[in-house]
């Protein structure tokens, strides 16, 4: 029996379906990330799990128990809202202690636990500070401490870093990950940012138009996206139409690509995904090693990004491919004609 089981949840607002039969399961002390573009229904799913919305169909089960008739304040799920929803009339400590007061525990215990939470998020010095005087990052920490304080059985985070600026995000992301792993909290995180999801999750569920398109570990998801939409959402843009030629080669407008096409029939139409880290530049006189593929094209644009060059290569025909080339290779110049070697491990074959 799963710790949390969501089965066949559907929900529509004013006749417009937002969730269509979503199911997922989560084990204790794991972190699940629901990743999707805005409007994909991920926040609604989170609110249904919290009990703030009622599903039209389906059920949320916690340790096998149906939560249909358990109201939100009795579920003991912590939730951190997108804009944090800190109480403006209470100070930092007051916000963190709110849920503890609701538990009805003794005053001294409230003080102890509040202090513990403050030090967990590193805000010991700000306990009496007014929440309006906090920076964005501090607010995020107070919100996290507040949702963790009353010993929630499950933590729900709605875009926990969404309203912060970029530099702050990376630091707080690592902090958040560290805190959640340290206390072993079962967590569901909703986000639209793949970097965030990859960094924090044990499992990622990609949501698209109210359905879960794919659910897997971050590595598997990145290596083997289930369909072109998932690939595109993960920021993988090199998608090429092709046809299976043999068990290990596919004919595409780029030429013949060598890649194992397990589970695909000969002659079947497929989409080939070439990941941006698949290519290295090949000097003109080099032999193409066994099993590698080679494509040729003109460098249309080249952007030095420090660790790598981000290049756009135009292959004859309209096709444009984007690659991240290691910075220690010779700098490609715009207009150069280049040959690129593609390693088969960075190429995925998908149906369609």
């Amino acid at each position: 029996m799963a710790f949390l089981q969501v089965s066949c949840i559907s929900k529509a607002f004013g006749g417009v379906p937002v969730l269509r039969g979503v199911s997922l399961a989560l084990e204790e002390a794991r972190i699940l990330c629901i990743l999707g573009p805005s409007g994909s229904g991920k926040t609604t799913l989170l609110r249904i799990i919290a009990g703030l919305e009622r599903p039209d169909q389906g059920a949320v089960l916690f340790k096998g128990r149906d939560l249909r008739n358990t109201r939100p304040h009795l579920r003991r799920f912590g939730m951190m809202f997108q804009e944090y929803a800190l109480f403006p009339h209470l100070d930092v400590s007051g916000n963190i202690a709110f849920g503890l007061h609701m538990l009805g525990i003794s005053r001294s215990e409230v003080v102890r636990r509040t202090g513990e939470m403050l030090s967990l998020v590193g805000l010991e010095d700000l306990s009496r500070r007014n929440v309006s005087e906090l920076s964005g990052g501090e607010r995020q920490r107070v919100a996290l401490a507040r949702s963790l304080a009353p010993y929630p059985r499950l933590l729900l985070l709605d875009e926990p870093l969404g309203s912060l600026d970029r530099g702050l995000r990376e630091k707080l992301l690592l902090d958040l990950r560290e805190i959640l792993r340290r206390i072993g909290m079962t967590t569901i995180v909703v986000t639209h940012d793949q970097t965030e999801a990859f960094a924090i999750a044990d499992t990622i569920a990609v949501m698209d138009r109210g359905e879960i398109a794919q659910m897997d570990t971050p590595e598997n998801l990145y290596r083997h996206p289930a369909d072109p939409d998932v690939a595109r959402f993960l920021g993988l843009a090199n998608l090429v139409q092709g046809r299976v030629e043999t068990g290990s080669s596919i004919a595409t407008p780029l030429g013949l690509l060598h890649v194992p096409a397990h589970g695909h029939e000969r002659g079947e139409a497929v989409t080939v995904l070439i990941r941006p880290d698949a290519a290295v530049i090949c000097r003109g006189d080099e032999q193409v090693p066994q099993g590698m593929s080679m494509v040729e094209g003109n460098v249309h644009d080249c952007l030095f990004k420090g660790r790598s060059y981000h290049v756009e290569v135009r292959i004859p025909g309209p096709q444009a491919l984007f690659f991240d080339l290691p910075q220690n290779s010779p700098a490609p110049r715009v207009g150069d004609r280049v040959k690129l070697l593609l390693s088969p491990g960075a190429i995925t074959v998908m149906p369609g």
Partner: protein
Amino acid sequence: MDTGVDRDRASVRTSGNHAAILLVALPLAFLGVFYFYPLFEIFSVSLAPAGQLDPGNITALFSTGSSLRILWFTTWQAALSTVLTVTLALPAAYVFARYRFPGKSLIQSCTAIPFVLPSVVVAAAFSALLGDRGLVNEWLMGIWGFSAPPIRLDQSIAFILTAHVFYNFTVVLRIVGGFWSRLHPGLSHAAQVLGASPWQAFWKVTFPILRPGIMAASLLVFIFCFSSFGVILILGGPRYATVEVAIYRQAMHLFNLPMAAALSLLQICFMFAFMWVYTRLQRSASVPFTPESLKTTQRDIVSNTDRVMVWGTVFFMLVFLGSPLLALVVRSLSTGSGMSLLYYRSLFENAGQSVFYIQPALAIGYSVGFALVTLAMSLCIGLPVAIFLSRDRGRATSLLDPLFMLPLATSSVTLGFGYIIALDEPPLNLRASLIIVPLAHTLVAYPFVVRSILPGLRSIPAHIRESALLLGAAPGKVWWKVVAPMVRRSLAVGAVFAFTVSIGEFGATIFLARPETPTVPLAIYRFLGQPGAMNYGQAMAMSTILMLVTAAGFLFLEKLRTGPEGEF
């Protein structure tokens, strides 16, 4: 070395300030002569009636039981009215803050109409609905055959309280509702996820955040009820007297000017104290929470509970706020022989049996005339003040802004009384002059003009004016060609405000208008006080006309304020 530049700038600023002083010279003179001088006279008559300091009046005020009784009644009726208003309006504020429903903005505009009606009209409307001669009693007597009116509210405290709730309902609805609608429902949800039941979430989170708004609205309602005059004079009869009514009776019935002055002084002190607290409260009411857009805080009607709550509230409001006004119209049309326009026609016929009789149509003429003069004078005073205050001039602004708003904190009865004791001897003997009425009205109306124009002026970015200057327009031209067109709409709002304030003004007018030159509210008051179906019917007809004029003015304002150019 840029000290030279600095000095140039400084000299530009001071010369700008000299011009600015000219701008407010006329308003300051007006305020001095027609506000502070009467106020000073009230002080001197109450403290030194015979030219020497004699605190006898003040001590008499506190040693006689009757004035303490008046003060006590004034306070508790205001407190009770406030509690009732808040209790009834709070659920409505919730519904208007949290739901979207068809017709909402129209309903919200209409519920504000009672607040802008002249007190005489409100009194007449309640008399038409629930008074001894009102519709409900008439029907009950017709249906059940009672020989006397079964509902006896005339001259009762319940009547006064009902009228006060009716009057101030929209104050709480607007202030608290506005506050509430900007409060993110996520706060309540966050509390619930943290283990608070919906009820706990309301008391521990929503209510504390709303409290400053509720306090501000309550205090405002309390101030209005504390200085209530027309409603109590007409509905309360001789049994009840607030401080305002007592001033009027002492001055106009008993001719005890020192006593009236002492009471006025008391009223002035209380009103200033309340206003001071209110200003303080408003400052602290700006709770540092980030206001949310209405899109995220309001929801559609979905469940049956929603439906019952929303439409139940709307139904209650329409019945409570609409029925007195409807009764007024019905009563003005129902004559002994069925529905007709008899009373309206009679307003324009000269019955002339009595030497005291004044043709009602004349009262309408005087009212409109006074209102037009008030409008012109209010713009002449209000516009320069608004232009002056629209730029930050440091201490001058922070000093003059509250000074120019002071008349708002002074009840019109004390104002009227101050005028009759101050402006009755040369060189300012205006008692016999027609202009004294619009002068008092202007003092009541111009702060509204300033408050209407000021936000419009302040919202014009400095660089728009500067680019006009650099394009070769002289400062005066900049005003006419650039600024004026941009604030045209707020000017119109201020003008309509001044007109409606003047046409419904009662408290000061009752002291100042001469018997042969009454205004419509005064004529209504006189007709209501006289026996006979014809007098009553004419009072109803005039009240209906006044109600329609005021309501039309107000709805026009609402339309202007929320027009395509946005709210201001």
